[in-house]
């Protein structure tokens, strides 16, 4: 189990750095629910199922919808 935690932590860091340092904003928005899903697996391993359900529904589900809507509404100034 310790090895799984180490592997998931490394994935978490890779996803976060990809989300910040990528050039296009669309890649950053699409990488956001992957970040949330890895956090959900970590919370289940650390024995917190209530927090895991809230994270899966709100951060990885609904906040991604908010980001996609914002990305769609600001279409004409996307190139800069």
């Amino acid at each position, binding site marked *: 189990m310790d090895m799984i*935690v180490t592997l998931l932590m490394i994935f978490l*860091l890779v996803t*976060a750095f990809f989300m*910040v340092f990528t050039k296009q904003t669309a890649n950053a928005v699409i990488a*956001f629910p992957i970040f*949330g899903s890895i956090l959900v697996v970590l919370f289940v391993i650390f024995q*917190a199922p209530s927090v895991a359900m809230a994270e899966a529904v709100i951060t990885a589900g609904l906040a991604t919808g908010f980001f996609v*809507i914002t990305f769609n509404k600001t279409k004409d100034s996307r190139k800069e």
Partner: protein
Amino acid sequence: MELPFVVVTILFCLGIYTIITQKNLIKIVLGFTIVESSLILIFVLVSYQPGGTAPILDKAYHLVVDPIPQALALTSIVIGGSVTAVMLALVIKIQKRYRTLNVDKLRKLKG
């Protein structure tokens, strides 16, 4: 168990660095969510004990993890979702007013 605290530190610093240096407004909001996620992760890590079970006592138990930080983390997640919605609405209003998402151009247009 040394590694998760190092990861939490790196995530917090990455979020602060994003808020300071990035130019795009959507990425700044992403930086806020990264900081919030790292703080939730440290709440859960403080409550964890090796060999403990989850705080649902429907069977016989031997050792139970701490339920108070988990309740605080649940509160933090819901508030973070609504705060993210308000920030994104402000981003849309700024883009409709100034026709740009870049922070530097926004600063030039103002003066």
